[in-house]
């Protein structure tokens, strides 16, 4: 009724501006912004930023948490919801769930295991999702990796759907897949695929190793077999010269300018 009257008086634009704040949407975008743009959670505590928000929308400021910890718990909540969603997707897959994972160290020395799942949904569309990023405590042995992996598989309830593992050539990945099998058996799940068959090698890493062999041939086992070849790669002098040139003279960076 009020709206109709206002419309009649062509006050609709003002009316729209004064539409009540949709608090849930506001909170959603607030967290989205902080997470995607990698803003510190403490940002919401900044007085000047709060002033900025208050200028835009005076009543909005009462809905901005006073502490970054609240944002953190909201983000965690969002994380749990996303996990449940992924779990449902994984459960509904018509294919096995394949895993690729790799270990990385952060600048402060912590090691993280990125675990990515690959599967096909009921509409035959392929999916790829990061399902966990746990910190690895202790030595980075295959056994340790396997225990962490099985924990994640159990969390998503996909132990029985586990398919193949696409990993790089590191030897601890060999033991990881082997230990994964015994870990699964230990927890009462009998794997259908043997660990030998399950362990696949990332083709990109293979290509990279082959190129390295071609350029530098450093692999000791290869060199042992044919001693003539030791000198062979040293002859790739132009490559070395060029690399040295690159390193030596920063002036080379100006080459492009002079050549054009």
């Amino acid at each position, binding site marked *: 009724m009020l709206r109709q009257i206002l419309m009649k008086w062509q006050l609709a634009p003002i009316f729209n501006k004064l539409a009540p704040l949709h608090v849930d949407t506001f909170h959603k975008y607030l967290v989205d912004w902080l997470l995607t743009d990698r803003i510190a959670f403490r940002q919401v505590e900044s007085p000047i930023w709060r002033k900025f928000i208050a200028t835009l929308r005076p009543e909005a400021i009462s809905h901005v948490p006073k502490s970054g910890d609240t944002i953190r718990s909201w983000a965690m909540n969002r994380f749990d919801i996303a996990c449940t969603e992924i779990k449902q997707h994984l459960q509904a897959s018509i294919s096995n769930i394949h895993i690729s994972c790799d270990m990385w160290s952060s600048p402060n020395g912590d090691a993280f295991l990125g675990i990515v799942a690959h599967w*096909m949904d009921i509409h*035959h569309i392929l999916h790829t999702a990061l399902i966990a990023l746990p910190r690895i405590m202790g030595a980075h042995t295959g056994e340790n990796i396997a225990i962490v992996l099985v924990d994640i598989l159990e969390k998503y309830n996909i132990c029985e759907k586990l398919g193949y593992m696409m990993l790089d050539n590191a030897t601890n990945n060999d033991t990881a897949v082997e230990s994964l099998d015994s870990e699964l058996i230990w927890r009462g799940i009998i794997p259908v695929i043997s660990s030998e068959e399950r362990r696949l090698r990332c083709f990109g890493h293979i290509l990279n190793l082959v*190129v390295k062999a071609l350029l530098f041939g450093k692999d000791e086992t290869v060199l042992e077999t044919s001693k003539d*070849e030791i000198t062979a790669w040293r002859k790739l002098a132009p490559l070395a010269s*060029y690399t040295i*040139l690159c390193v030596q003279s920063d002036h080379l960076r100006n*080459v492009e300018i002079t*050549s054009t």
Partner: protein
Amino acid sequence: MLHQDNDIWWNSTYDMIQCALQLQEAIDRYIVAAMAESRKSKSKAAERLEADQLHPPDWDELKVLYNLLSPFKELTIELQGNIVGARMNGAIFDVLPAMDMLLNTFEDAKLAYKAQKSHFASCINLAWMKLDEYYNLSDNSPVYVVAVMLDPRLKLQYIESRWSTRPEWIEMAQEKVRTMFNHYRNKCRSSVPLASISKSVSISSALMHPESTLRNWKYGPIAPVPHRQELDEYSRAPLETEDVAPIDYWKANKAKYPILASMAWDILSIPAMSSEVERVFSGYILKMESLTLVRNS
């Protein structure tokens, strides 16, 4: 801007050479000028530059290297996946043919360079040996052979024609395919009756129309009986000549070949590389702000 290779980026050497070749003239001119200048000022840099100056034979060598490396660049791009659509995961059925292709290229190149008495022959041999090592390791899993078999444009005919000189390899490949097929056949057999009952008769409709339950049972759709012939029939059928994506082919033919289709879902969803994990790490996850979140989860 000149590129320099590094250990982290795949194909960075290739990119470096490509860049150098494009700027060949400029680099040569620069070095000559720099040498003249440092000679004038009598600095030691002149000697070093002279030692590293690239002469025409050096450039030729870089060109050879460039050509040798280009298939790797191409394959990395093609198989790393994440292309939206049917080939999002990078195609596992391409891995074996890609390895065959590279080994073959190496063998040809090795002969050619050996004839020229070029040291490239040894380099190529080293690469060949490395690739062969992984080629043999790929034998540990039936996945690669089965993936090729599930490509309707190749089937096992690819293996039979490309490996024609190695009959024992062909036999092993056929054995792998048969073993996996039998495994899926057994799995299908045990799951079919349950699925068809729960689908065709819902409890409420059975209560409301008691007579229709029997009719449903008698005339209802019968799940295609998985039989031994499915694999043979598929192998005998002519190769798909059109450029159809394997997943699309199995979508269209899942009623005809139910067992092979269920195999296809499992095998064709395997990525060819672990590049997705790398993307995660080269992305945004390990920024300091996110660490508190990660640590407590």
